[in-house]
């Protein structure tokens, strides 16, 4: 069943083949996990939220009418789940550069070869940790647009489908998010700490 399209699998699930839903879970769990991890800043929380996302998707499968691609519909559920999670969580936790969720979530730095340039690997890691912490400080609207477009690689049109807003709005939010990130990370560019 791995070669079937999402719509075909959805049809089979709606006809009672619950295990067919597992194919969709396997197909998209990493992408949803990545988006949610970068949104909430915790890999551990993200696992639970990914489960919540797929359960909600299963329950609401009848409402998926196929107007948009299945994965954009799934992303929407995932991002809403992540947004609700942060909204309900006490706003006491502030992302800091000491947060190690990159390691917890299994992230590996690009340069694995210790002989290449250890110092550059360290600088790369420092910058990425600062970047991840800065993303958490963005407003929900900017963060969602940036994570979906620049981190997950969705096109502006796809992000517009997920967020149900005009493409121009997506473009504007992504641009503003990038400007804010560059402002927050200015010292890393000035000091020469570069990825």
């Amino acid at each position, binding site marked *: 069943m791995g070669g079937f399209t999402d719509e075909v699998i959805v049809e089979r699930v709606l006809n009672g083949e*619950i*295990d067919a*839903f*597992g194919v969709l*879970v*396997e197909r998209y*769990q*990493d992408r949803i*996990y*990545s*988006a949610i*991890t*970068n949104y909430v800043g915790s*890999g551990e929380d*993200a*696992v639970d939220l*990914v*489960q919540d996302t*797929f*359960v909600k998707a*299963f*329950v609401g499968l009848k409402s998926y009418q196929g107007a948009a691609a299945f994965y954009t519909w799934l992303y929407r559920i995932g991002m809403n789940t992540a947004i609700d999670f942060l909204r309900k969580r006490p706003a006491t936790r502030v992302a800091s550069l000491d947060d190690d969720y990159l390691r917890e*979530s*299994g*992230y*590996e730095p*690009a340069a694995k070869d210790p002989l290449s340039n250890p110092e550059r690997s360290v600088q790369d890691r420092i*910058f*990425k940790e600062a*970047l*991840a912490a800065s*993303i958490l400080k963005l407003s929900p609207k900017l963060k969602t647009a*940036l994570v979906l477009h*620049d*981190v*997950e*690689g969705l096109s*502006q049109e796809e992000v517009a489908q997920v967020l149900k807003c005009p493409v121009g709005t997506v*473009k504007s939010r*992504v*641009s503003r998010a*990038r400007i804010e*990130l*560059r402002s927050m*990370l200015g010292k890393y*560019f000035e000091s020469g700490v*570069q*990825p």
Partner: protein
Amino acid sequence: MNCRKCLKLVEDYIDARIECATRVSIEAHLTSCDACRERFEQTGRLLLSLQELGNNSASVDVWPGVRERIAALDPSGRAARPRPRFRLISVPTLAVTVAALVITFLATEFGSRGPQPGLQRPDAEYLQYVQAYSQFQSNQSLDAGPMKVVVELSREKVWRGE
């Protein structure tokens, strides 16, 4: 192409959303402008790092957990949670209802007793009494039939509510 125009097109250039001719103009400008080139490089590095953040993968397979939760759903698709067939009444509501019933009962049972204000409309017994008394006035005999009626009636409560 000047710096102002060039910086406005940074995003579109990196997202590959500009025409070929414009791209050529930008690249020509970048060869001679250090400030714009630095801005382009910073934005490019930022986007490359953001892309690399998207390489996260779930270290566990979430399907078993999802499968278990789906199996726990009731046939309507909602989470299996027992629901009472009737709605339970809360304790405060029940207390108020009982108190209202008690008050109504007491008002019905005892509220009609006691003297009513205003004149009583004479009932049949009272008329008998008056008639008997007037005859008594004329007969002056306690044993007379009408007086017997008076005595008997006097023992009864004529007035309603007493």
